[in-house]
């Protein structure tokens, strides 16, 4: 999902950084052991959800006696992933399908992310382990492409799953990013996998303000959103279940350098992941992006209330 969030600016600036990384220093290991249990540097991407997740991992590890440093809002994946591989950071909350596609892309391997999170993580480990990085257990929490309708529409037509839409699709307009009619996960996928043939398509943005405005003015009936976006509930929308698995599984998954990982760190992160879910994630995103609470405070509250 991050690929869509990355800015052209970021991508171009980092292309340069990548070239230099390829040519030069591998970077030393991040500084370790000022505390008996060692130091872990956690980075986040440049959006609230990632900052919240970094501080949830960090809060849980800190309570176990680790020294935690943060590199918040470090940038997009083009910055964060190389920083992990070169040891400038030790850990970040990745997204199973997107991180897999990114890592395979750099290797020139054909992307094979699927709607199965376990498969994606297994493949991630195959690609990243030789580079000293491990992917831990995927969380049930997911931030991936999803299709939403207004709550009113869902209630009156009894819509829960995407396949429920088939009875009304012929009179509906679909909203999504301009590339939606070409992308397999978007309009073509809805047609082939679900047999949904809409009356029309409206080019908007990828789950941003334009999409929300289009729902508000009833210009669209169904639109592409990100499953954990805080704006979904704030705009009285509901996400329909992807019951035929059209979308690649972008479950949250910790990516950690093997050098700082040990059985305790693994078990802390895996148990955090097991307790995270998409509804929590959506609520925390709303708290940060809509209500403007501090991502770090939101994360601390979650850590405390879940007993980490």
């Amino acid at each position: 999902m991050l690929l869509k969030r990355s800015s052209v600016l970021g991508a171009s600036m980092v292309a340069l950084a990548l070239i230099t990384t390829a040519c030069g220093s591998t970077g030393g290991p991040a500084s370790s052991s000022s505390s008996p249990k060692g130091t872990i540097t956690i980075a986040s991407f440049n959006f609230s959800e990632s900052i919240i997740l970094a501080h949830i991992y960090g809060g849980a590890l800190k309570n176990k006696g680790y020294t935690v440093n943060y590199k918040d809002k470090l940038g997009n994946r083009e910055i964060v992933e190389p920083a992990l591989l070169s040891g400038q950071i030790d850990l970040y909350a990745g997204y199973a399908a997107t991180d897999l596609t990114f890592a395979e892309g750099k290797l020139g391997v054909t992307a094979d992310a699927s709607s199965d999170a376990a498969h994606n993580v297994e493949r991630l480990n195959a690609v990243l382990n030789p580079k000293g990085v491990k992917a831990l257990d995927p969380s049930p929490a997911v931030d991936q492409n999803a299709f939403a309708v207004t709550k009113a529409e869902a209630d009156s037509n009894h819509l829960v799953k995407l396949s429920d839409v088939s009875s009304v699709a012929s009179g509906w307009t679909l909203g999504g990013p301009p590339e939606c009619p070409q992308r397999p996960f978007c309009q073509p996928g809805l047609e082939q996998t679900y047999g949904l043939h809409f009356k029309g398509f409206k080019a908007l943005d990828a789950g941003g303000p334009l999409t929300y405005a289009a729902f508000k003015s009833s210009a669209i009936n169904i639109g592409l959103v990100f499953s954990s976006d805080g704006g979904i509930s704030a705009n009285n929308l509901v996400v329909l279940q992807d019951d035929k698995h059209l979308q690649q599984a972008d479950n949250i998954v910790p990516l950690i350098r093997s050098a700082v990982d040990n059985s305790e760190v693994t078990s802390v992160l895996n148990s955090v992941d097991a307790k995270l879910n998409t509804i929590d994630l959506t609520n925390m995103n709303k708290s940060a992006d809509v209500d403007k609470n501090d991502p770090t405070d939101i994360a601390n509250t979650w850590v405390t209330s879940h007993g980490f």
Partner: protein
Amino acid sequence: MLATGVVGAVDDPWIRWDWTTRHLDVIGAALSQHIELTVVAVGLGVLIALPLGLLAWRERVLRGPVISLTGILYTIPSLALFSLLIPITGLSILTAEIGLVSYTLLILIRNIVTGLDAVPAEVREAARGMGYRPRKQLFQVEIPLAIPSIMAGIRIATVTTIGLVTVTALIGEGGLGSLIYDGLLRDFKTPLLIGSVLSVALALVADLSLSGLQRVITPWSRGRATT
């Protein structure tokens, strides 16, 4: 695309005073980091520029290369420079400072050379006539007379650096830039506004203080300015 943080439908006022009062410590820390990054950058810049500027002024052959090299540094887009440095110097203050110092050099060196060039030939002649040796002439006659130009360079470099520091937010530093960046990412006007206003205010205060300092250390130019 930053749009995912932008939820649109909710009204966000230009400034939320409750947020501001709860984050005074964050704002204070951002401001002091901003000042620190600026002072270190301009300070190091002056330390490097002074000998280079003197050298470029005395050795005519070196002038072209020094000015064009620092000119090239100056034209590298700041975002690109910072990200080019990340693989070498990491995500550190050092990366930020190398970038910031590089941008001060052209302004400072040019002003040093211009200032020294502008010392009137007859003043130099008179100094030599009075028996000044070259070193004494440099430090007691030429450099003092070049101070207005050098100080003008320092003022421009300082104001430029204060603006550039905000960009280092993208590599995890940034002083007030980190507030601006937070505001951009969350479509949250309060930190955006506070970061921008304080950054502008800091530039104004710094410029005024430096111009005050210049008046104090060059009392002679004050008299001349009024006639």
